[in-house]
């Protein structure tokens, strides 16, 4: 084999692998990305039942109820609120009046069945999407955005 042929084989196999990778990435992106929506988005976009989405907002104060393993609560962005049901253990930082991101799909009645609940990881940290969604609805309180490092610095 000449040097040129070897190089062609090398380049050809690289392109083949890259082609496979690109096909895989595109295929997987089509199937497995999940869009983030605020409760208002869900209503305005007329999201169909069964479509997998992430729903984020604040847990409405006074809406949380639990019976054995089934938890029910409302997620709100101040304008719209959506009923969410979830079966399982909620994260430690899940609290009424705090930010939450849930993943799942709407059922036929327009309430949301979540199979994953992510609460923010730190009490000074608000999930970015939730913060943005709340800002849009004008319910942003500035102290949500306080980060541990931003206070106490010398003026």
């Amino acid at each position, binding site marked *: *084999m000449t*040097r040129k042929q*070897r190089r062609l*084989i*090398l380049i050809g*196999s*690289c392109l083949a*692998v*890259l082609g*496979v*990778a690109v096909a*895989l*990435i595109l*295929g*997987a*992106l089509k*199937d*497995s*990305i*999940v*869009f*983030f929506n605020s409760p208002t988005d869900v209503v305005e976009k007329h999201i169909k039942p069964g479509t997998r989405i*992430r729903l984020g907002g604040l847990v409405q104060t006074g809406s949380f109820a*639990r019976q*054995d*393993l089934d938890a029910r609560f409302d997620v709100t962005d101040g304008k719209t609120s959506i009923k969410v049901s979830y*079966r*399982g*253990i*909620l994260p*430690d*930082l899940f609290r009424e009046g705090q930010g939450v991101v849930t*993943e799942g799909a709407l059922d036929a009645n327009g309430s949301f069945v979540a199979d994953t609940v*992510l609460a923010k*990881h*730190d*009490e000074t*940290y608000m*999930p*970015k*999407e939730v913060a*943005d969604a709340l800002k849009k609805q004008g319910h942003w309180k500035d102290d949500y955005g306080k*980060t*541990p*490092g*931003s*206070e*106490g*610095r*010398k003026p």
Partner: protein
Amino acid sequence: MIAEIGHYALVLALGLAVIQAVVPVIGARLNDPTLMAVAEPVAIAQFGFVALSFAALTASYVSSDFSVANVVINSHSTMPLIYKFTSVWGNHEGSMLLWVLILTLFGALVALFSANLPAMLRADALGIQALIALAFHLFILVTSNPFARLQEPPFEGRDLNPVLQDFGLAVHPPFLYLGYVGFSVTFSFAVAALIEGRIDAAWARWVRPWALAAWMALTLGIAMGSYWAYYELGWGGWWFWDPVENASLMPWLAGTALLHSAVVMEKRNALKVWTILLAILAFSLSLIGTFLVRSGVLTSVHAFATDPTRGVFILGILVFFIGGALSLYAWRAPALKQGGLFAPISREGALVFNNLFLTTVCATIFVGTLYPLALEAITAEKISVGAPFFNATVGVLAIPLLFAVPFGPLLAWKRGDLLGAAQRLIAAFGISLVVIVAAFAFFGAKGVLAPAAIGLAVFIMIGALTDIAERTQVINQPSNAFRRAAGLPRGAWGTAVAHLGVGIALLGIVCESNFGSEHIASVKPSQTVALAGYDLTFEGAVPRQGPNYRELVAKFTIRRDGQIVGVMEPTKRSFAARAASTTEAALMARGVSQLYLSLGEPGTDGSIVVRAYYKPLVLLIWLGAIVMFAGGALSLSDRRLRVGAPKPSRSSILQSAK
């Protein structure tokens, strides 16, 4: 006073970094030996001052000096001593200080252990290293100063985030950073080589130990982080494809590719341009990881310190170093001479195959991690790319890569014999086929994928053993095997052991994710839950007082076939200082499998929600990483690679022989 000494030490380190980045590089251009020689003592001194600075911050934490803002925000006077130490790096400012501590540590190590390097390469590499340090010293002093003081010290600190009050934080970040930052050395050497325009096989030999050390630390760092998430987050998962995790996996993949391609460069003087590119990419990905974590552009369950205002500064550092290095690369690389020839089927070919797939996997993860950010920036649409994406892409790409692992070491350099290698792997094929059939029969028609993956793991493990068996000829000439084994270069042992580790980890991953069982229930005292052949009896929950928290301890008695095998006590802790709570899972090892209990909310009637997992062979995942680490350590101890080890001169050998 101690905090101010630390602050000043950091300023001095910045000053020394300026000198180290300028003087030796000018010296190298003018070929002035004295100016070049400035690099080493200054690099060591710079490390000394950063270490002093770090010690001062640690002292402030240990004595709970609340005139230091950073201590107030991340510490509490009643915290146990170990967490006072670890909270030094459990926050943004402190972790950046740890970052430069390790960066300058590597600079000092290069200064100490590179007497065998040409003076010019050493001066240039240390100059680049100092330039990186300079950027991060500035970043710390200007945007993230851990020594900022408060005029009126508050009486009590705000405590460390309870999730971070764990032994995992003591070990995970230092190792991760050792890995991340270790690749700065290969980066500096690559840029130095590009500046000088001389890149040859010798370069690879000099750089490989550093790449190996960084890779080892990163392997262990990622494994520890994964185990920490596994037991601390209480979800029973050990890998979430979280952007922060991906940020550590990408440099690891690039670094693994670098290790392999550097072998080709060292032995055959080939793949030079590619190896240099990988050296640049590995550290660039580390920098991107730092940017992703530290700038707050991500929504991540891991982010414990985020501040978008710092993002711009890090982005600047990122653009300067990555952009600068890649431009230099584009300018200089075409001028490099081509190296040795090889056939597609050869050791070199196998290593190219390895590199091709590793970098493709790395690129895939890169796309999956950054696509949501790009899409949001362009269309304002928010999406999340989760585990399904990564499982579908990485899973498929990893199969040919893993399948090829046993073949590589069995192929000869230049022109290999694939059929011959396959014949020598016949035993490995046979055993893994038997395992596949057995697994299929045992687990029933749960699908063919899991048994096949188990077979692949076994194939890799037996393949690694085959490599050693072949080299020592333990089958053909057992009598001489021991002598041969002793004479085998440690590098060869290292390869086999590391590949064995890959197989072990794969076996753990496959079994845990396919055959694990999970049960969620709300239990009342003396109620029993059955899981994977175990009976878990809830004995009741009692409150208990910890050093700086209170906890609810649920006691479970574990029985198998009526015999008590142990007691598990998962707890829920509440920390008054932050008004936060954490769930501490209970783990019980059964061989290399584990039972895992995690608590939910307690009910009003004495019941409690519990999540119970049985995780078969789960410990193999981290055991595999430890074995990989051991393989790296074996290779690093190979005399040929040992950095700066003085080689006995020929005459002294002759003398001692007399």
